[in-house]
């Protein structure tokens, strides 16, 4: 066969504006857990009890760590860029819920995803997306290994799915402590986040 550029089929991409209109029009089935990630519509996995418990525990721990002046959102949309509107498991944003009555927050001071085995790949894609958007503090709560992976200092990397990755990553054991970048005076025991 002669050499020839092979055409990889790609799906139609959607912008965030289109995605928000699709939601307003009620095109998706109610209860469909969909996120817009880099123009692609991704379906979230059905939520297990362990996964959800981890989300709740993380939210409570972060509420205590951040205190007033911050809002801890669970599975709430972030208007990240023109082709992305992810719904991180937990996100901490400045202000109060009313501040986002008209538009989703566009940045989060801390973003947490809870990961079980099968989804590590998708979570890594998300990590690259968050790095591209300049999110300063991204945590992946790894339920399989029972550790917290902390990703900071976004840096360009042409090999990453979205051209960016975190420049500094750290794996923190269940028995160790962590402080969010935006709440440096706090100290959270990782085991407090784990179900």
């Amino acid at each position, binding site marked *: 066969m002669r050499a020839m550029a092979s055409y990889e089929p790609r*799906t*139609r991409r959607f912008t965030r504006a289109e995605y928000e209109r699709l939601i307003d029009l009620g095109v998706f089935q109610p209860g469909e857990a969909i996120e817009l990630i880099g123009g*692609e*519509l991704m*379906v979230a996995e059905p939520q297990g009890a362990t996964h959800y418990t981890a989300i709740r525990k993380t939210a409570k721990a972060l509420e205590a760590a951040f205190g007033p002046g911050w809002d801890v959102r669970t599975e709430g949309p972030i208007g990240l860029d023109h082709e992305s509107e992810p719904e991180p498991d937990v996100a901490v944003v400045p202000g109060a819920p009313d501040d986002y009555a008209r538009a989703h927050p566009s940045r989060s001071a801390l973003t947490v995803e809870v990961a079980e085995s099968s989804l590590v790949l998708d979570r890594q894609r998300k990590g690259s997306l968050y790095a591209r958007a300049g999110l300063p503090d991204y945590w992946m709560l790894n339920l399989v290994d029972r550790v917290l992976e902390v990703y900071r200092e976004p840096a360009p990397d042409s090999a990453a799915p979205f051209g960016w990755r975190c420049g500094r990553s750290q794996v923190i054991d269940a028995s160790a402590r962590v402080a969010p970048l935006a709440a440096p005076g706090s100290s959270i025991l990782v085991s407090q986040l784990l179900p």
Partner: protein
Amino acid sequence: MKQAERPGLHRWTRHEYQRLIDHGFLDEDDPIELLDGLVLVKEPQHSLHRTAVLLVAKAVERAFGEGWFVQTQSPIVLDDRSEPEPDVCVVRGSPRDYVDAHPTRPALIIEVAQSGLRLARGRKAAAYARSRIADYWIVNLIDRVLEVHREPARPGPARRHWGYAAIETLGADATITPLAAPSADVRVVDLLP
């Protein structure tokens, strides 16, 4: 992993796909098709591809004659999650029979493939076989041959996906008889630009 193979991608139903068109997200003239719930952007059309489509349409129109019509790059309905637009397909009856709904079971589907050869042999062949399309041809512009796919077969120990059990590759000097037009002869050379 190929872009369109990732498991987490949202799969559209035909009903949702129709709403995307109705609300103006997709234009009926956009080069897209719904295959297995994925809204795929079609292979870019080069003049060589377009020429082949026109040649194929002309040749099969002549071969099938009365009682059939030939449509090019128009939708057909395979199942709840697939509404592809094959390059050429031969449908029984007349266009007026399909005023209210797209055709569902063409007697012959032909894809012209250049850079999209892998898609034509892979995901598309699987979708057509699953819908029991009996006669599926690929005009392979790279090797200038016709690949004839017949005998749709379900997954089993020998195969992971639906596919065709009988695949034959014909050179430009061969002739082929469509399953649904047993007295016709189509020269492969007439299909090639």
